[in-house]
């Protein structure tokens, strides 16, 4: 029986799981398909509800795993085959230098998530106008100090791709409300002259301090929240026309904007169904990994010995991903020793 644990995914959930196992005397192989650890967290500028420096936080965590001798980090590596059962999985890893066989006792899947590309939402002019960006692109713009300057209006659009039966996903992406508020605040801090508008259906601030965070955007940073889903973004004379309904009033409204930020849905990681088939575990209708019992065993996959962590199971914020990483680490330790 192997005492090693394979962690798939070097995002914050995978890093936390690897760290916790190592802290308790286990051996870990941490694989990441990209060339650096950090995952989606590393692409952010600030965290919420406290505006912490995301890059510093994640590099601190990455450094911890990199300096732990019992964690072997393999970047640019993917899983290509997996056989066996709990305590004795034989896995095949494809690295840059070739393939490699390993025997591991447990597997933690922390494959993360993917921001949906809202190309199907042609009504928002995404991909046609450079002034319409996704939240991820907005983060990048903020990191590179490319946010528009001067007297500009920025419109944030909630629920792009989520809560949508026709073209997207029916589920709620859970964190878009909070991160859009974060973006609005970032915009205001970077350019105090700017005016921000947020179009929402409901505000779903499900976490400690989240409601207060969004209220602070409204009250202190003067962000205008309009209840209504944006119907159309048109380009007109170098400006964007954002059309929606102020559904609290019942009036169709129009905002002339210089930048439109689409809070696109969190969707399952690319290739999640293939990975699930390889591991022999179940996914839900969207392609997220299915837990076997969501109330008391949220990190157990449908196969014993394979555990789930982070946002590959459902849309989730950083704190929950960290908690879930810790939980799956303790479950993995229980079967490997």
């Amino acid at each position: 029986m192997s005492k090693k644990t394979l962690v798939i995914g070097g995002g914050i959930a995978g890093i936390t799981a690897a760290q916790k196992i190592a802290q308790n005397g286990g051996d870990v192989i941490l694989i990441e398909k990209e060339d650096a650890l950090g995952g989606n967290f590393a692409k952010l500028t600030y965290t919420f509800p406290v505006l912490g420096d995301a890059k510093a936080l994640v590099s601190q965590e990455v450094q911890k795993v990199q300096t732990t001798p019992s964690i072997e980090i393999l970047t640019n590596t993917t899983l290509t085959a997996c056989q066996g059962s709990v305590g004795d999985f034989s896995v095949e890893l494809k690295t840059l230098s070739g393939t490699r066989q390993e025997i591991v006792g447990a597997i933690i899947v922390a494959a993360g998530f993917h921001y949906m590309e809202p190309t199907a939402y042609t009504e928002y002019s995404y991909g046609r106008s450079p002034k319409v960006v996704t939240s991820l692109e907005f983060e990048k713009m903020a990191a590179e100090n490319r946010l528009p300057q001067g007297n500009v209006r920025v419109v944030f659009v909630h629920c792009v791709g989520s809560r949508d039966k026709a073209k997207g996903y029916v589920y709620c992406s859970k964190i878009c409300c909070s991160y859009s508020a974060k973006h609005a605040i970032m915009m205001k801090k970077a350019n105090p002259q700017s005016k921000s508008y947020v179009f929402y259906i409901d505000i779903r601030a499900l976490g400690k301090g989240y409601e207060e965070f969004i209220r602070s955007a409204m009250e202190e940073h003067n962000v205008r929240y309009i209840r209504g889903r944006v119907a159309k973004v048109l380009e007109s004379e170098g400006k964007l026309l954002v059309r929606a309904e102020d559904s609290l009033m019942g009036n169709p409204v129009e905002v002339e904007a210089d930048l439109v930020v689409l809070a696109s849905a969190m969707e399952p990681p690319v290739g999640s169904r293939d990975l699930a088939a390889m591991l022999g575990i179940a996914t839900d209708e969207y392609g997220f990994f299915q837990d076997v019992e969501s109330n008391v065993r949220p990190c157990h996959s449908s196969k014993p010995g394979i555990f789930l962590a982070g946002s590959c199971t459902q849309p989730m914020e950083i704190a929950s991903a960290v908690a879930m990483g810790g939980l799956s680490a303790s479950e993995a330790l229980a079967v490997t020793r």
Partner: protein
Amino acid sequence: MPRLDKVAQIPKPDKIFVFKSCVASNKYPGIEACSSDSLRILGIEPVDSDEQTCCGGFVTFANVAAPTASMPAVARNLSLAEEKGLDTCVVCNGCWTFLNEFGHFMNHNAEVKASVNMMLNMMGKEYKGTGSVYHIAEMYYRLKEELAENVKRPLKGIKVATHYGCHYLGGGKYTAIDDAQMPSYLEEIIEILGGEVVPYTANRECCGTGFTQVINGKDLSLEHTKTKLDSVKEADPDILVVQCPYCHSQLDRIQQQFNYRDEGDFQTPILHIAQLVGMGLGLDVAKLGFAAHVSGRARLENVLDRIGR
């Protein structure tokens, strides 16, 4: 972006049943003449029947009876093509929606189909649901290569704006060949014909006819048409191309009314896509039926002078 998988499913038959539209026949005969002739040039023999009536949609949208009353009329018209074993090609967005949508509804609703067939059987007809309905713009897009080969009178230097019309793209959310919000196949056809596409802001706005609104709520209808026409005027195209005769009639005739009322000076010629293709394919000028056009005829003459008669 056009849905290429849908386009590929459209056949290139030898013959097709051309369903005539009421507005096209009686207000803008050029559309009727051009649709048959252009299809013939592109290698499809148009088949015609004088038994075909109005699509039957009028009954539903005017609320003069429940949709149950237009269902048999739709089925009857579709059965005319089915008898000949052909698919149907329509020139009007309204006809397309009703034939397509109600046909689809009957195909998936055995009870309604049976009751409709009970009526049709009395007149010796039957609706089976075997034929498909295609819009003529779809056919042109499918016959892109043939179109490119046959251009005789390239629309060189002619600025063309597009208006798709609501009932093809909106009503056909899942069945149309393009996305409802940002379609682009008409633009491609225009480029094949050698024209220059002009974008304008209100591209996807409704023409303002609103089925019955132009009769019962004229003020609303005019206000909406004005926003549309204002936006078109700003872009100043030589031609605004539409794919629905009803939009054609609204946009063409209301311009004249605004001019009479001194609410602006609108002189944009409106052309149906069949007329535009007919023009590109070098049909006789009389066949294009420009004499029936109300607004912007001087500009149409100018366009003809530029590209050759």
